[in-house]
C-alpha cells in the first residue's frame, strides 16, 4: 500500500517541480511583461499545489497533513489574486502590452477611453 502512496507522491512532486521549471523558462522566453506574468501565474499556482499534494501524501502524522491542507487552500486563494493585482497595477501605470502591428492602434484607442473613466481616484 505504501509503495502506491510513495509512487504517487513522487509523481506529484515531479509534476509540480516540472511545472515550476517550465514557469521559469517561460519568464525567460516570453517577450513582454504580461505574457511572462501569465506564464508564472499559471504554473506557479498549479506547481505549488502539486508539490503540496505530494507532501501531503508523503506526510505521516495528522497535524502536518492538516497544516499542509491549510497552506494549499491559502495558495490557491492567494496566488491568482496576486497575479491579478500585479497585472492591474501594470496596466494602471500605463504599461502597454506588446501586440502585433495591426491590432496596436485599435486597442490603444478603446484603452484610452476606459482609462479616463476609471481612474478618478
Amino acid at each position, binding site marked *: 500500500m505504501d509503495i502506491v502512496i510513495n509512487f504517487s507522491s513522487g509523481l506529484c512532486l515531479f509534476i509540480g517541480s516540472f511545472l515550476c521549471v517550465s514557469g521559469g523558462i517561460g519568464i525567460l522566453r516570453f517577450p513582454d511583461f504580461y505574457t511572462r506574468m501569465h506564464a508564472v501565474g499559471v504554473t506557479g499556482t498549479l506547481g505549488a499545489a502539486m508539490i503540496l499534494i505530494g507532501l501531503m501524501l508523503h506526510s505521516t502524522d495528522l497535524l502536518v497533513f492538516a497544516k499542509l491542507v491549510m497552506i494549499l487552500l*491559502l495558495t490557491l*486563494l492567494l496566488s491568482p*489574486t496576486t497575479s*491579478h*493585482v500585479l497585472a*492591474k497595477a501594470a496596466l494602471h501605470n500605463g504599461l502597454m502590452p506588446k501586440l502585433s502591428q495591426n491590432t496596436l492602434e485599435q486597442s490603444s484607442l478603446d484603452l484610452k477611453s476606459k482609462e479616463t473613466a*476609471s481612474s*478618478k*481616484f
Partner: protein
Amino acid sequence: MIDIVLLTLLLVVAIAIIRMKDLFAVIMLSGIYGLLSASFFVAMDAVDVAFTEAAVGAGISTLLMLVVITMTGRSENTTRHKPFPALLLVVITGGLLIYGTLDMPYFGSADAPVHSHVAPRYINDSMQEIGIPNIVTSILASYRAFDTFGELVVIFTAGVGVLALLSIVRRPIKGDKIAAVNDSMHEQHLVIRIVTKILLPFILLFALYVQFHGDFGPGGGFQAGVIFAAAIILYAMLFGLSTARIVINQAFIQLIAATGVLLYGCVGLVSLLNGGNFFDYNFLSNDAIAGQHLGILLIEWAVGCTVASVMIIIFFNFADYRERQLSNENQHNQESP
C-alpha cells in the same frame, strides 16, 4: 551548504541595491533581502528570528518605505555623494573586521566559548525552571525579561516619536463623504476586496495563534503584533483610511499602546511587591512554574498589544500625512488650474 547559497544570493541583492537608481526597485530589493535573510535564519535553526525578520524586515519596513516614496518621488539623482572617502572608510572598517574574524571559533563548532559558558544552563535547566519547550521564548520572557521590556519601550518610543512628528489635528469627515470614497474604492479594487474579506478573519486568527503558541513553537508577542497590524493595514489600504479610522479610532490605539507597556511593567511590580526581585515570576503565584507560565503569558500579551498598536499608529500617521498632502495638492490645483 544551503546557507552558502543564501549568502551569495544576499550578496547579489546587496550589490544590486547599490547599482539601482529607481527607489521603488531598491525598496523591493530590500524586501527580498529581508526575506532571504529570514530564510537564512531558518537554515541557521533560528526559527523565531526568521519569523520576526520575515514579518518585520520583509513586511512592515518595505510597506512603510513604499508609503514614503509615494510622497517623496521615485527617482534618485545620479551623482554619487562622495564615493571615494566613503569607500576608503568602508574598506578600513571592513579590513578591521576581517582582521577580527581570523581568531573567531570556526562556524558551527560545538566547543566554542559561546556554547560552553552561559548557554548550556538555558538548554538543560529551562524545562525545570520555566517549563516551556521554546527556550528562546523562555530567555526572552523570563531570563532576560528586562531586555524585552527595554525593547518594548523602544517600540513605544518610536510610536510616540512618529506621533510627535506627523500627527495633525483631525477634522471629522462627514458621513456621506466616506461613502463616496468607499464606492470609488470598491469599483477600483473589486477582486482584492473580495479576497481580503475572506482572508482577514484568518489573518487575525493566525495572529492570535502565533501569540499564544509562542511557548511551544516559534512565535510570540512581536510576530503576533506585527501580523495583527498587517491585517489592519491591509484593511485600511483597501477600504479607505477614513473607514479604517472609524473601525480603529486613534485615541483608543494610543491607549492600548500605553496600557501594553504598563501591563508589562505591572507584571514586574507585582512580582516586586510579592517579595521577589523585579520580573521574578516565581512569586506571581504559589507554585513557581505556574508563576512562570502566567508571567510569560501576560508579558507576551502585553508585547502583542503594544507592537500591534504602535505599528498601526505608524501606518495611520504615514497614510494620514500622505492624504493631507494629496488634498492640499488638489486644492492647490483647483485654485490655480
